[in-house]
């Protein structure tokens, strides 16, 4: 249902990949190999060759912003352009957002906090929730737990899995350097070098 067809940028690819409904494909690879670029190309945020399709419809047949709301990229760091954290969320929180906050270990009181004073772990979880509240179909997660401790990682993984399970159309690509996470979240695990190849298990140097 979500397809990369010969997708390539100047630095990475061409890559071939098909996501099945509900699936998480976990991708790892050496630093600087172009994992982020691949995800950004999927969201049509950077120039690329090849094609990306959602349910058979090519990205170019969507308006750019419509596409990005459906196929949403989340980077490892986030920007907060309003004064308070809460200014980036609906006020009051929807019941669903409220439960998501609690689920990833954030107190709703954090919304009162000035955005620049948030810790990197708080920012990372808030950025995920800011994205999920828009209801994207395909999640392109670029090291979404890199600033979290192991308990926090598990909470975020569970939230994403539940989010995907709530609608059959949803699926995700999850880029991570954490090989345990790779095996934990990935229905399939892939390795990105020049191209995407099947991850052959522990023991591959990275």
């Amino acid at each position, binding site marked *: 249902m979500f397809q990369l067809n010969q997708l390539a940028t100047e630095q990475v690819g061409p890559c071939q990949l098909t996501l099945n409904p509900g699936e998480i494909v976990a991708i790892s690879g050496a630093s600087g190999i172009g994992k982020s670029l691949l995800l950004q190309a999927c*969201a*049509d*945020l*950077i*120039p690329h060759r090849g094609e990306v399709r959602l349910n058979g419809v090519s990205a*170019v047949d969507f308006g*750019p*912003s*419509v596409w*990005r*709301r459906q196929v*949403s*990229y*989340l*980077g490892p*760091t*986030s*920007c907060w*352009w309003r004064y308070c954290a809460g200014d980036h969320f609906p006020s009051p929180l929807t019941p669903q957002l409220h439960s998501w906050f609690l689920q990833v270990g954030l107190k709703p009181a954090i919304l009162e906090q000035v955005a620049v004073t948030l810790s990197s772990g708080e920012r990372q979880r808030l950025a995920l929730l*800011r*994205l999920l509240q*828009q209801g994207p179909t395909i999640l392109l997660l670029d090291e979404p737990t890199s600033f979290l401790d192991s308990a926090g990682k598990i909470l975020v993984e569970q939230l994403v899995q539940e989010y995907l399970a709530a609608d059959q159309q949803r699926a995700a690509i999850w880029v991570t350097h954490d090989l345990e996470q790779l095996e934990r979240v990935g229905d399939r695990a892939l390795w990105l070098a020049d191209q995407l190849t099947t991850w052959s298990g522990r023991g591959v140097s990275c």
Partner: protein
Amino acid sequence: MLVKLGYLDLSIAWFLLVGVTLLSILMQLDVAKKVLIAALRMVLQLLLVGQILKSVFLLQSTWALAGVILVMTCFAAREIIVRQDYHFLKRSTNLVGPVALAISTLVITFIALRLIIGITPWYRPQYLIPIMGMALGNTMNGIAIALHRFLGQVDQKRGEIMERLALGETPALALLDIRRESINAGIIPMINMMSVAGIVALPGMMTGQILSGTSPVEAVKYQIMIILLVATSIGFGTMMVIHFTSKALFDQRERLCWERLKPRG
């Protein structure tokens, strides 16, 4: 009638400036050279422009007038470009500021002369050159400041813009805060000037007319017209430059193409 100044009279003003410059040397302020060079430039430029304007007025030649206007516009355009810390790799994008300046000031000057003052021919040099000059100078400042702020903010907030696009915002929305801030920066000097006009500062044109014997009531009317038109020109010019420069930062798929922008140097 205006009392004529001789060059000897001007030298008194010169001695005053030289005096204060000497004082600055005594106080080791390290500004003497800069002040004297700037003052010399000013004197030479103004003496020259006085002679040029005199001959243009005498000649009543449309070509000479067009030449003066062209030179004034080119200098103002160049000033906009050299004041920027960033430039676009594509040459034509750097011309957005100058083109906005030219369109804005020419339209405003034409409206002032043709529709408001209503002289014939509308391009009489005694009216055209001073009014165009005021529109050019102020609009140039507004555009240069707005563009400078805009490009600096875009470079600094690259990550934020990318992220807002990733969240599905359109380029117009992703840049909204930056656009507001830069246009504000461009028009604030004008707003400040209008707020204190007549109370704290007497605008130069009005002062000049009063000195040359015009009734203050008439001089004030001219000044009001000029300020309103110049404010319009600044507003129109800054909006135009920010609008088209914003467009130049994105491709047809609404991707931020920040590599099109390079810091100067």
